[in-house]
């Protein structure tokens, strides 16, 4: 509470000082707008010594200057874009003015591509977001063209162009029909950023199982498991065999190996066997255990 009051009174006194600027107080004349990373000068008026402050989003400079002369601001002192306050204090008077440091031309791009794996032949499943920066990583707020170049593992590459809005451009894509890497590059002319995602087989298609006699029962084996575009499902994908016979219902989950899934089940009497992979149901077999 006491501290708050102190700040309040100090503030009142300070504002009084600000309000009491005399007619010949020092004045500042910065350029109306400055590009990030470019040196410039701020003209001052008055005479004698003063203290100059330059407060920006990423810096707070203080130096003693000769009033009436130019204050030189080096390029590396204004690399962060945003609103800057130039303040000059002489004796009891302070005066200030504001100016903008704006981002330079597009020079860097950050690119996010999501997700890392997508099923083939799926519309609107790939999201890309590009952030456009100048060489000092200030967002480029004026519109900039971002060319999203898409290079599938097979087929002709193509591109989609979007114009950034307040430094952001985005694209939504569908996956192609062929599994394999998909390379998407965000290109702003002066810089490009590639990303690669993996297109994998989609759900199984035309899942079929066949039965052959085995040593301890019946061997159930699928045809090569592929999606509807003909891409083989990766090894390790689980295929479920479900058998219903006189002894009840039995389900066996088995991974695909070398493109097919197989299991051997004992069968008592007549049995019905179905096969499923993910959300896809395959054909149904009727088998007899004595055959």
């Amino acid at each position: 509470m006491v501290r708050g009051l102190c700040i309040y009174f100090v503030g009142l006194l300070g504002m009084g000082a600000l309000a009491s600027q005399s007619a010949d107080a020092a004045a500042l004349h910065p350029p109306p707008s400055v590009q990030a990373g470019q040196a410039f000068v701020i003209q001052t008026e008055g005479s004698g010594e003063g203290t100059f402050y330059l407060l920006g989003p990423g810096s707070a400079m203080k130096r003693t200057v000769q009033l009436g002369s130019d204050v030189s601001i080096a390029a590396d002192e204004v690399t962060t874009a945003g609103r800057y306050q130039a303040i000059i204090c002489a004796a009891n008077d302070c005066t200030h003015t504001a100016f903008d440091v704006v981002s330079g031309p597009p020079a860097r791009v950050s690119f996010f591509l999501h997700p890392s794996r997508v099923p083939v032949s799926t519309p609107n499943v790939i999201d890309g977001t590009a952030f456009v920066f100048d060489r000092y990583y200030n967002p480029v707020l004026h519109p900039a063209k971002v060319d999203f170049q898409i290079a599938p593992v097979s087929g002709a590459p193509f591109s989609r162009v979007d114009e950034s809005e307040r430094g952001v451009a985005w694209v939504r894509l569908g996956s192609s029909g062929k599994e394999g890497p998909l390379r998407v590059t965000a290109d702003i002319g002066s810089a490009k950023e590639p990303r690669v995602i993996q297109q994998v087989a989609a759900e199984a298609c035309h899942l079929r199982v066949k039965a052959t006699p085995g040593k301890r029962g019946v061997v159930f084996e699928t045809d090569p498991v592929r999606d509807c575009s003909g891409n083989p499902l990766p090894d390790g994908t689980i295929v479920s065999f479900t058998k219903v016979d006189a002894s009840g219902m039995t389900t066996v989950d088995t991974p695909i190996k070398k493109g097919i899934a197989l299991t051997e089940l004992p069968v008592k009497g007549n049995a019905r066997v179905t096969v499923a992979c993910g959300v896809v149901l395959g054909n149904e077999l009727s088998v007899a255990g004595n055959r």
Partner: protein
Amino acid sequence: MTLRSRFLGTSLLVIVIALAARAQSLPQVSLNADNLSPRPIEQLTGTNITRNYSMAWHAMALALEQNRPDLLNDQFTGFAKDHLSQRIADQRRNGLRVQIIDKGHHVKALFYSLDGGAMQLLDDAQIEVQVFDGSRLIYSDDAPHRYLVLMTPGADRWYVRDLERAPDKER
């Protein structure tokens, strides 16, 4: 359940958080997510964004006043944290400090990436900024401020990744 009803208030989402427990210290933030693209905002996300952005301003005000960059760690990341940390280091070296009297923020969500990994906001802030050199007030500003903000999600909160005063032409 339709998409529209699932994301409550997608077409008109105005969340004003009365942060009960910490209302005395946290700035008030209202979030407007009308016409947000390319994806709508979920209600819980809107609530979290609002709370975290309010906490970020609270942390920034303390950090700039006490010249303590460590106070930024829980709410800021990336360029925003780098810039503010450098600013605080400069302030400390030059004997400066900043007092922010926060009167609230009207935030409009501009962009929410399809993967949910980034949200861009435009903040019309009502703040009073006072700059002190030692105990001397050298600058005071009570004008409206407009900020362009980029927030990204972390493990349990949204972080301010970029906080930039929008140029005059953005107003």
